[in-house]
């Protein structure tokens, strides 16, 4: 067991080092093969570990690698925790990553920094796996910041574009603010439980006072809002679309941005200690889901729509965590990874065929030119819209059913968000694939091309997964389901059990109605129209003016304060005070004027003389 799970992490690390150190001697194909192969191997090992875990009597296996930080009472090993939650995460992370690596071989073909791209991508997978497999919070933090760093590098991949460079920096800074939360959560937990190892913390949650528990949960929530792009730290994610599209699919949709949800789920025994903490989580999740969905209705860039859609969907996951529906959150996380990766890669294929154009107003009628991208995208669209029997219907339904049992207003907000989801996705679908062809100028009159097989094959696999993903956790199956597998990991499971069968049918009908309503609205509005001031308000297009608000309330005042420190405090107050003292001393004695003669030799002499004076003084004193 021990060695096998270690390999999950080591394969991508080896791939990273190989490409980084030896990439210059490798062809593009070899680099792609090594990068993709390393992640695929990691996926296979995850599968093996999964089956070993199934046959194992204990579902929690700790793999100690080496002693990392050990000082006084602090003991932080580099160690892995192999349990249902971490293995589930590893499986879907490595699986999706392998597909996106394959896709990137085609998408990034001919790029100048091909080698760097694949080494970053492998480093990302390594960091993500460290994040989910770590057996303690500090090691999770290694992966947590590691994925943030890779995200920074990959967003600013086209670094000669100022927008890309700024977007990368913005992502890192926003994430850092969130990381502050994780640091403080660690400080609190170490201070009150004396350990940072997950299982040890969980065995001592009973000793946490309600205040400390709530503070810890809020700190964890801050961490999650940074990494998972939730209110108030969500507005770095749309900028992150500056990165190449496979990066958006992998990091900014399927895997990294779900890390915050993973962290909250992992810490569920601590969440169990604070109902007000959980309530805050649910409210943040619900609000983000709704706000982001409204913004997505008015974006003109295909990737920005998908970015806000991602923020919104993660909002659902956070909402699920907040009501204690942990397995529903993970279920949505996995199915979302399938369909959102599918949609992003599909949009990448569209962008690829239009020579890099991302503006929805310059698309349309692509259906007949993209024979593989179109049907797979169609599947993705229906899945995210919540149409049965695709995976999204089951996973979103699972979340909403759980929310209904705990909090009716948040459930209503969730349903409203579901209508908006179906609406903005249908708008995107219509503007891209249907209607008149508006791309001739972009393609200089040529017909758009379908992408090569390395790009379409992952689309097909993801489409199949989106169709079938629902079987992971069908509501009437309780054995061999994802929920059944995961539940032992959680310290607290939503009380009240499952809703009655009748209520479940009723809620399912509401979900279907929401999807249909959104679809119909979009089709009736966006038939033959490409932009509409009425349905794309500037307020929504500009993200509720969120950036302007931060700029006015935080950015500019801080910049002014820093400038003031430089101009006034440093130059005049502090230096002035010292100068005044020095001047006073100099003026007080005529003889001292010679000291300030400006020749360093005199100062050196003064030092030596000073030492002589010490000696004389001592002799006099002793004598």
């Amino acid at each position: 067991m021990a060695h096998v799970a270690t390999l999950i992490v080591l394969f991508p690390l080896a791939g990273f080092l190989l490409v980084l150190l030896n990439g210059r001697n490798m062809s593009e194909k070899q680099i792609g093969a090594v990068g993709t192969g390393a992640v695929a191997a990691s996926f296979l090992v995850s599968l093996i570990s999964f089956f070993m875990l199934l046959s194992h009597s204990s579902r929690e296996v700790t793999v100690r690698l080496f002693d990392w930080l050990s000082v006084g009472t602090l003991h932080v090993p580099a160690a892995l925790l192999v349990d249902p939650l971490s293995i589930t995460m590893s499986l879907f992370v490595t699986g999706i990553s392998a597909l996106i690596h394959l896709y990137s071989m085609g998408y990034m073909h001919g790029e100048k920094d091909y080698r760097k791209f694949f080494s970053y991508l492998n480093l990302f997978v390594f960091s993500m796996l460290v994040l989910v497999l770590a057996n303690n919070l500090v090691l999770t933090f290694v992966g947590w910041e590691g994925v943030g760093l890779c995200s920074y590098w990959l967003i600013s991949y086209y670094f000669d574009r100022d927008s890309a460079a700024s977007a990368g920096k913005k992502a890192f800074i926003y994430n850092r603010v969130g990381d502050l939360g994780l640091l403080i959560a660690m400080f609190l937990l170490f201070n009150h439980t004396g350990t940072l190892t997950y299982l040890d913390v969980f065995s001592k949650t009973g000793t946490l006072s309600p205040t400390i528990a709530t503070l810890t949960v809020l700190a964890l929530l801050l961490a999650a809002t940074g990494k998972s792009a939730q209110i108030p730290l969500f507005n770095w994610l749309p900028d992150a679309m500056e990165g190449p599209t496979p990066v958006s699919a992998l990091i900014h949709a399927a895997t990294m941005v779900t890390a915050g949800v993973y962290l909250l789920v992992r810490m569920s025994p601590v969440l169990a200690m604070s109902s007000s903490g959980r309530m805050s989580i649910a409210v943040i999740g619900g609000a983000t889901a709704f706000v982001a969905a409204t913004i997505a209705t008015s974006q003109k860039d295909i990737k920005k729509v998908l970015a806000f859609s991602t923020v919104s969907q993660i909002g659902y996951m956070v909402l699920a965590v907040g009501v204690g529906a942990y397995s529903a959150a993970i279920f949505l996380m996995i199915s979302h990874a399938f369909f959102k990766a599918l949609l992003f890669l599909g949009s990448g294929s569209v962008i690829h065929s239009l020579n890099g154009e991302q503006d929805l107003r310059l698309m349309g009628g692509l259906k007949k030119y993209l024979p593989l991208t179109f049907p797979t995208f169609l599947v993705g669209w229906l899945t995210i819209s919540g149409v049965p029997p695709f995976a999204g219907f089951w996973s979103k339904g699972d979340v909403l059913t759980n929310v209904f049992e705990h909090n009716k207003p948040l459930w209503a907000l969730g349903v409203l968000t579901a209508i908006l989801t179906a609406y903005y996705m249908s708008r995107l679908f219509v503007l891209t694939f249907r209607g008149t062809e508006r791309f001739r100028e972009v393609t200089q009159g040529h017909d758009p091309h379908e992408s090569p097989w390395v790009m379409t094959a992952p689309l097909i696999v993801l489409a199949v997964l989106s169709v079938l993903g629902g079987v992971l956790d069908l509501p009437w199956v309780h054995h061999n389901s994802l929920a059944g597998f995961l539940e032992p990991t959680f310290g607290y499971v939503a009380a009240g059990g499952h809703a009655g069968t009748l209520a479940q049918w009723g809620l399912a009908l509401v979900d279907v109605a929401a999807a249909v309503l959104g679809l119909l609205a979009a089709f009736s509005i966006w038939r033959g129209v490409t932009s509409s001031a009425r349905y794309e308000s500037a307020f929504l297009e500009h993200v509720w003016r969120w950036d302007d608000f931060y700029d006015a309330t935080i950015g500019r005042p801080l910049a002014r304060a820093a400038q003031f420190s430089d101009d006034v405090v440093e130059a005049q107050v502090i230096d002035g005070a010292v100068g005044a003292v020095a001047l006073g001393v100099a003026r007080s004695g005529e003889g001292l004027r010679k000291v300030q003669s400006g020749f360093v030799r005199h100062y050196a002499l003064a030092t030596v003389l000073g030492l002589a004076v010490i000696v004389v003084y001592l002799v006099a004193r002793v004598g």
Partner: protein
Amino acid sequence: MHSSLWIAVLLLVPLVGAALALLTRKTEGRAYVVAVAAASIEMAVSLVVALLYNNHLAHAATFDFYTRHVLSAPLGLAYDVGIDGISLLMVVLTSLVVLLALLGARDRRREPAFVGWLLLLTCFTMGSFVAHDLLEFFIFFELTLIPCYFIIGQWGGAQRSRAAMKFFIYTFAGSASLLVGILYLGFTHQHQPGGGELTFGYGALSSTAMSHGTAVWLFIAFAVAFAVKSPIWPLHTWSPLTYAEAPTAGSIELSALLAKLGTYGLLRFAVGLFPLALSTMRPALLTLAVVGILYGSALACVTSDLKRLVAYSSLAQIGFITLGVMSGSQIATVGAVLLMFNHGVITIGFFLIIGFLEQRRASITVRDFTGLQGPAPVLAALFTVVMLASIGLPGLSGFVSEFLILLGTFATHAWWAVFASIGVVAAALYLLWAYQRVFHGRAEGANLEITDATSKERWVLVPVVVLIVALGVFPKPVLDRISPSVQQLIEHTTVNGVTK
């Protein structure tokens, strides 16, 4: 216990090297060869000392390589040296700094006088770190000023005499207060019941009985000198000017090494000798540390010159060290000692790379650079590693020390740790912004023609990168050496920290 001859070798090698370098002629360029040879021997001996230290006994806290010879009983003057887990890293840092400064900072290195001063500075700094006697420490501490004056004042930039003057005024004032403090402590010890001979030995003085008020005044007298040297806010304003005006090797020596004399002195002497003062002085110094972190970060955001950026970033980093040193927590203090070393390594990296840029473009102004990652990807990558370590990215060295400091301080002084943590965000802000302005964007004109790191430049930075990664991934050997000594010191301050 190992022979004290090892320390004698550490002190003599740079001294002999300096003498030999000064005997060579300026035109021959042999001074540089001699200096590198001496620095290499020094480095090798330091590493052997680090490996031998207490025979790998993980929990030995005693001073190794110890000896005491009284040179003059009536003067209380003694040659009293030893190395414990706290000074061990500083010894290694001292030799690392001079070796890399010689190898990497290519300006002026052919001048016998310049390399001679560098080696003398190494000898004096080494002496300060191994001194186990306060008077002896003071003499070495004070002697370090002489080479510094010459390095800044003769080989510095356009404003070198102003920089040297400012440096002088500050440090001299600080030293005066330290000297008064040391003498007062020595005489107090001599005149206490059963005091006997005049001594400035660290061991003897640490058991000096004194009132709370005396302890506080002595603590302040010591702390002022160390605060200037470190520098701790608000006694820092000499440092941006001096770091910017000094030649590259001088900036490295000052910020990577001599700054640590301040923080080391604060821990070893101010905290170690005056436990009674701590209850009063802790809140004040912790607050200054936090202000330094935030203030340094703010100024690093708005400064327009790369060396000043590192100076203000160092002010923030020294704030973290001070926080750990004053926290009273074993974990945080270990982190602080480790950060003294890590910050040294990181600063070497920063100043070397800035020196490389200065050589190419004759400028250190941020505005003069743009898009360097295109023409100089290796230089950009090397800068990135150093920058990320400074930001505190887990897996690299800076994180380990910063994390230990904040975690430990949170347990004893939670609010200070929380505010200090904001510095973690701020570090990312000013460094990434600087990186964006210098390395991102589209290179044009002179920036487009910039050459990437040469193989010599790469090799000089290899030790920096290796230390940054190694101490981030596997800091255990180092932590095991620091920890017992720190534990002993913390226990001493806890036991003696209450009025009997």
